[in-house]
Each structure stands twice: as C-alpha cells, then as structure tokens.
C-alpha cells in the first residue's frame, strides 16, 4: 500500500503483489482466549483421561482385593501417607530435586561446550567422540557404587551419576543441531564478512536450539533417574533413600508415595523445560503449535 506505483501506463497492480495483500499481518489475528482454552482442553483431555483410567484401574484392583494390600496399597492409602508424612517426604524430595537440578545444569554446560568444541574442530571430535561413546556404553548404574566409594555418602556421587546419565543426550542433540545448519546460511554469513564468532552467535547457536531442547527434555528426566540411582547405592537422604527404607520395612504405601512423587518430579521438570522452550523459542513453538507432542 505504501509503495509508490511506478508511473507507467501498464495495468500493473498498485498494491503489493497478490501474495502480500494490504491487510494486517496474520500474526495479529491470533485466536481469542476462549478458542485458546478450547485448544488447550482439546490437547490435554486425552492424557488426562488415560491417567484417570489408570488411577481407576489401580483403585479397582485394590478395592476388589485382587491383590493383597501389602503388595499394592490403594490410591487412598497412598495419598493418606503422602498427607501424613508430607514433611518427611518434602524434605527428601527437596534433596533429590536439588541433586537432579545441579546434575542437569552441569550436564547441560558440559554437554553444550563439548558439542561446540567437537563441531568446530574435527581433531577434537575424533578425540572426544570415542571417549563419550565409551562413557555412554558403561552402565552408569553399575559404576554408581564406585562413586560412593570414591566420593562418600554426600550428594556429590548422586550429582555425578545424574551428570553422567544426562550428559549424552545433551551432547548428541547439540552436535546434531549445530551440524544441521543450512550450508547456505554459512555462505551467506561469509558474504557478510562475519567472523566465526559472529556466525556462531547469530546463526549457528540459535539455529541449533530446537535440537538442543529436544535433548534437554530427555536429559532432565534422565537426571532424576541418575540422582535416585545414586541414592539407591548409598545415601541417608533423598527419594531413593525413602524408597529403599520403605522397601526394607515392607511399607508399600510409603514406597508407592515415593514413586508417585518421583514421577511427579520428572513430569514437572519436563514441563518446565518445555515451558522454557516456548518462552525462549516462540518462533519454533508457534510453527509446530498443532503438533501432538506438546503436552502443555
């Protein structure tokens, strides 16, 4: 509209080309609040229904006494335990959360750094990659006791196990992200006279973030597993410890409560990573808004 029409005699349309159109940009015409709520409901009802069905099955099994209550406590009993021992559970959940988050954070920093180094130097890639692969194929659960021997009963061995488990998906996703850059983008950058640092900061790194986030989602749930495994091997606090204690006492309601909270922790952390993705990469999220993998 704003364009000046060249003063020709030709029947050239004065408006910007047909594909452009003089209207307001489409992004302003987003869905209203009601529609968005409906869309959210549409997305969530299936998993919620499935979860409800599982709970109902659990309740039915224990209510009909198909299984002895000391083997599978009823949902009611489990929730009762969660309520009665809230302080105890909270205290230990906090320890596990702390270990998980610290382990995850270290894994992300180390993973992203190694990926960047590996992508920028073929020599480093040849050196690091086999080491990484080797570290990955060693069963971390099997070497966890070794860390307890080396590092004691504190939270350090738990964090180390969490880092080791969460590290691999971070590196792999970041390497994939950095390598999947369109070569034309790099050529474009070369014609702009940009050095490697600017190219990295403005093109390569942001372009790799969607891949990285895919890895982070896997990594954060693995970090929970890592922390709990570390606690299984030797600890006097944390959800792993709670579960082991309950197991030793044949206290299945407490065991179930521990499992429940552990799963909840994983789900919440996963959701947080997904939220961060939406906030940090709105361009990416909005492009796949209708994708079924979005859980929130």
């Amino acid at each position: 509209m704003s364009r000046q029409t060249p003063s020709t005699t030709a029947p050239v349309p004065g408006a910007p080309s047909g594909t452009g159109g003089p209207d307001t940009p489409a992004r302003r015409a987003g869905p209203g609040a009601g529609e968005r709520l409906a869309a959210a409901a549409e997305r969530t009802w299936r998993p919620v229904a499935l979860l409800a069905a599982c709970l109902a099955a659990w309740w039915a099994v224990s209510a009909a006494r198909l299984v002895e209550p000391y083997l599978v406590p009823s949902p009611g009993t489990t929730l009762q335990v969660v309520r009665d021992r809230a302080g105890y559970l909270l205290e230990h959940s906090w320890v596990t959360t702390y270990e998980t988050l610290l382990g995850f954070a270290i894994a992300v920093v180390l993973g992203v750094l190694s990926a960047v180094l590996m992508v920028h130097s073929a020599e480093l890639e040849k050196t690091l990659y086999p080491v990484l692969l080797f570290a990955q194929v060693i069963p971390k659960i099997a070497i966890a006791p070794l860390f307890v021997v080396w590092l004691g009963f504190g939270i350090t061995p738990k964090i180390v196990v969490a880092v080791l488990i969460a590290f691999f998906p971070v590196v792999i996703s970041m390497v994939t992200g950095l390598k999947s850059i369109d070569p034309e983008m790099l050529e474009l950058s070369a014609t702009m006279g940009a050095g490697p640092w600017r190219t990295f900061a403005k093109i390569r790194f942001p372009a790799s973030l969607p891949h990285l986030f895919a890895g982070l989602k896997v990594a954060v749930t693995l970090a929970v597993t890592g922390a709990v495994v570390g606690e299984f091997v030797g600890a006097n606090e944390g959800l792993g410890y709670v579960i082991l204690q309950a197991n030793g006492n044949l206290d299945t309601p407490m065991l179930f409560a521990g499992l429940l909270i552990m799963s909840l922790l994983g789900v919440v952390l996963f959701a947080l990573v997904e939220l961060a993705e939406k906030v940090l990469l709105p361009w990416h999220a909005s492009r796949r808004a209708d994708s079924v993998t979005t859980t929130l």
Partner: protein
Amino acid sequence: MSVAEETVGKPVMVESAPRQAQPAAVDVKDVAVRFRSKKRDVTALERIDLSVPMGEFVSLVGPSGCGKSTLLKLVAGLLKPSSGTVRLHGDPVTGPRHDIGYVFQRAALLEWRSARRNILLQAEMRGMPADRARRRADELIAMTGLRGFEEALPHELSGGMQQRVSLCRALLHEPPVLLMDEPFGALDALTREQMNIELRRIWRETGTTVLLVTHSIAEAVYLADRIVVMSARPGTITEVIEPGLPAERDYTETVGRPEFAHATARIRRLLGSAAPPPDAAE
C-alpha cells in the same frame, strides 16, 4: 592486466567511453571448475569468459546442472576456480567477498528473526552503524512493499514476501554487485512478474551491477541488458544475447516488442539444442 586496461585508455568512443575507463565490475577469464569426489569427477564449468561492466544487468540461463550457481559462487569467492581467474572491480577474488549482495534460491531467512531483523542481520554481521542501517532498512522495506510486515516472522510471510526480505537484506549495505541465484524460482507466475518489475525499478534506482541466474527466459530477457546462455555439462557459454530493449521497460509493452520475441525465441532454440539427451544425465 587490469592496470593496462585502465591506463592505456581507448580512443574516445561515444557511448561506451565511460565504461571502458574503469575495470569491469565482474571479470571472469578462462575459468574452469572441476569437482572431484571419490566416485567421479565433474567438470562443472569450462572456458568461461565473461566481463560485466559496472552497472550492467546480466542474466544467466542454461539447463539444470550446467554450473550457473557455481559461476555465481566463483564471483562471490565462495568457491575457487580450478583454473583461470575471477576479478571483482579489478581485484582477483581469493576468498569470500564482502562487497557483494547474494540472494539465494531459497530465501535463507533466520526463522527466529522478524522481517526487519532479518534485513538488519547484514548490518549486524558487518558492524554497520545501527542508525544508518535502520534508516536504510526502512527505505528498502518501503521500496519493496513490505511495510506493515516488519515484525512478522518468516513463517508468517508468503514466499514472495520472504524473497523480498532476502532481497532487502542483500541490498542493505548498498553493494556494488548483486548476485542472485534463481531468486524467484519458487513464486507463482503473477507474483514473479511483479517481483521482476520491482527488481527492474530497484536496479534502475540503485545502479548496482547485477548477475541473475534464472530458469525463466521471459524474466531473463525482460530484466537484463545481456543474457548469457550456457550449455550443459561441462558448462560453457554458448552465446551472449543483447536484445536491445529500451531502458524504460513497461512490462506488458516490453514483452510485446519484436526484440523481446526475437530474443526469447533465440534463447529457447539455443537451450533446446543444448539440452542433453535423457540418457546422458549420468
């Protein structure tokens, strides 16, 4: 070589005198490009000689795979010739050149940046003064009819608008040479015509030297002063056509001219005979 051309100076010839005084914007001399891989060697270009004076608009047409993109990359310094020399404004091209604008076949936009910020990428990468860059970006946005879409992300833009953003980005730093690789290949015929009209107008306003690769014969003839017709592998220049159309080119009027019809017919015939037999495509 270019020094000799510059200093010797030809006897004053009425029309082309000012052009002869300066080195050619793009000068390709006896260039060959061979790609070697484990499986096979491909000679993409052979015996390419092309000199483009400053401010000229040249179209490159030829069958797919004849080395048009390769030629543009040579001029941009993104690729080194196996033999021969490439000069830009008289200097031999040895590495990626920054004094050019490059428009890729796909718009190649950063999907997390708005239209305006995609255009300004050029300035950020070059460390251009921010306020000058912003002013220039606004000018280009107005010139290409992108107003109102400055803040839209690439996926919210139509294909034609994405190409216009890409064109603005290539023009932001006012490059003396603009290289365009099938910039309108993905557009529908009508949008394409409109983009042609816009490009022609922008070129007239800026006086940039343009090398345009295209598969559309009409586009090549409408836009260019000269059309370089290439043959299939190994890519060589078959013929350079100068249709002699007037500088002021109204679209409908131009495509109706006998010169236009003559030039397009000639190119079509050349390309028809240059097409490789189907079994020769490896």
